[in-house]
């Protein structure tokens, strides 16, 4: 049986969530592996959300926001853009593969783009295999 990764998606309400809804109204088919959590702006995505998702057993985390220059809150996505490399660095330190956490820009009109990103990410995470973070944490907790 092929491994079906669980991916948590944090989508901004105005562009990306609407883009994902558009994929729906346009009946664009894509992989069912991403489960979406809506936030008002990508700037709301606290790095701890990403870490928490990985701790809770996510095999990957996708963050989507408005394209640079198009943020509903004018510059929220720029704030995320600054925070994101720091988060990636931290994850790298912990040995979490680069492809497990991904940041993408999806506008309200880009239903197809959202579907393509989900498919691509699902494929890449599937290649990486299940995340070992949660089992490791559980083993750690049991050992204590």
């Amino acid at each position, binding site marked *: 049986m092929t491994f*079906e990764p*669980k991916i*948590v998606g944090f989508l901004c309400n*105005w*562009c990306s*969530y*609407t883009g*994902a*809804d558009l*994929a*729906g*109204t346009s*009946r*664009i*088919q*894509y992989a*069912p592996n991403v*489960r*979406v*959590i*809506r*936030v*008002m*702006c990508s*700037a*709301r*995505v*606290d*790095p*701890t*959300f990403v870490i*928490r*998702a990985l701790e*809770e*057993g*996510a095999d990957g985390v996708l963050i989507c926001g408005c394209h640079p*220059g*198009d943020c*509903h*809150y*004018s*510059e*929220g996505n720029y*704030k995320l853009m600054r*925070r994101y490399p720091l988060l990636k660095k931290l994850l790298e330190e912990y040995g979490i593969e680069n492809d497990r956490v991904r940041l993408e820009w999806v*506008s*309200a*009109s*880009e239903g197809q783009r959202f*579907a393509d990103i989900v498919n691509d990410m699902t494929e890449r995470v599937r290649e990486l295999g299940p995340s070992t973070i949660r089992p490791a944490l559980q083993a750690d907790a049991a050992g204590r």
Partner: protein
Amino acid sequence: MDEPKIGFYICNCGTNIAKMVDCDAVAEAASQLPGVTVAKAYKYMCSNPGQEMIIQDAKEQGLDRVVVAACSPRMHEPTFRKALATAGVNQYFLEMANIREQCSWVHDDREAATEKARALAFAAISRVSYHEPLERRSVDMCPATLVIGGGIAGLSAALDLADAGTQVFMVDRQDHLGGNIARVDLTAPYLDSARDMLTERITRVLEHPNIEVFLESEVESIEGYHGNFTAKVAGKAAGNGEAHEVAVGSVVVSTGYREFDASRITHYGYGKLPNVITSFEFEKMLRRGEIVTKEGKVPQYVAIVHCVGSRSKEYHPYCSRVCCMTALKYAHEVKSAIPNCYVSDVYIDMHAFGKGHEDFYRRSSEVKTLFLMFKKNEHPVVRKADPKDDCEMLIEVNEQLSGELIELPADLIVLMVGMEAQPDCREVAHLANISADKDGWFIESHPKLDPVATTTDGVYIAGACQAPKDIPDSVAQARAAAARILAHISRGKLEVDAVYAEVDEDLCSGCRVCNELCPYTAIEFDEEKHKSQVISALCKACGACVAACPSGAIKARHFTDQQIFAEIQGVLA
């Protein structure tokens, strides 16, 4: 915290959800979760009986939390919030799981879709336990409106608003009002004069005591929020760089369209052959009252080519909607000016969808217009005729109905140029904080149920800036926008979402990181207490400060860390 009593409802949406998601199985799984008192599947949750079910259960079983797994919350969240309010439950005790747009419509594996729907339902149930009762805020509604663009849509919205006694500021970058219709002679299908129609409207707007018109001006910025915007309007004419600041409660964006540049399609010869002209150049001729070639001759053959730039793989994929009827109108006008002229219509499909259009098409066929059908993406080719021919040009058409390659004589060729979004549509979208689609048309709040509003409260769109539109549709949308605005003005106050950020003063260390982050300068620093404070009326709830606060002292109401952590846990359970 007492264990909440959660009602879980999953909507079949007819078969929209049920065909791909086993709703009963999801309801059964949800019923096992702690706190879930009621778990039901129903065919249409948004219907009256569906809502009634929630209200009834809330009253009888004392529900204090409700989860509806159905369509996107962007669609029916207000519906179910209202149902909760009716049941006497705080409306923020609702959470929706989007299992239609983001599940049943996008997956084709029933088992996988059901599993995903279950995960999304669990996430919502897990989150809703942490919801807090919130009260909506009430702000004053400024009774003035900014209308950007003075075409037929802008004029119509402005007049309705002004006639109702409210102030309108109208901005147009041109030195006159009327937009593209000011360039048109007659309108299809009733052959009324566009000028008569416009002149009356323009005169009324210019003379209206409640309308202030800024010509040769542009809106430079729009700040604030629904009910209380401040816009800067700047003159662009030489010697008139005057800037004005206007306070408005609503904004109507009615910036229209521009015509497709026909020289982009090289095989039509536009810009090379002098007697290949665009529909707008032909309108100019009609307004002058003489149909002649560049050489001043009366044409014997007039050919009208449809879908120039529209319905094409290379240029614009969409139909521009007005060109077919305009082309038929030209056939009428040519025939009445030059009765022995041969008129041919070179088209892909005849789109005669509107009121009176099919009749008009029939009448046009009766005035002996030759109709030649070509295939999409197989454009006819125009070339100069030989001196021995009795015409100026020849059009080669691979005619679909006869299946023959036909050479058509023409002295004058009218290209029905399609509509395209204004070249600066992205900048305008940014200015008004709305979105534009891939073609540059502004995106409405909902394509069917809310085609006038946008994702930014208080900003409305009207006319062809939203999509190609004819005059009646533009006017209808504009007047709908005016009605929406007047409804808000008549109440005097606006209810705004209870979602904004709050600082917990006990936790705030006074580091001021958040002060600089806020795009709305909604965070001020209390020097005396040495604490930051959010001005809730200015806060738009993006949450940038919440994620940045090193002390975790800022709370995003309705998007708290706790709520999102619960959602993460639920979605992975």
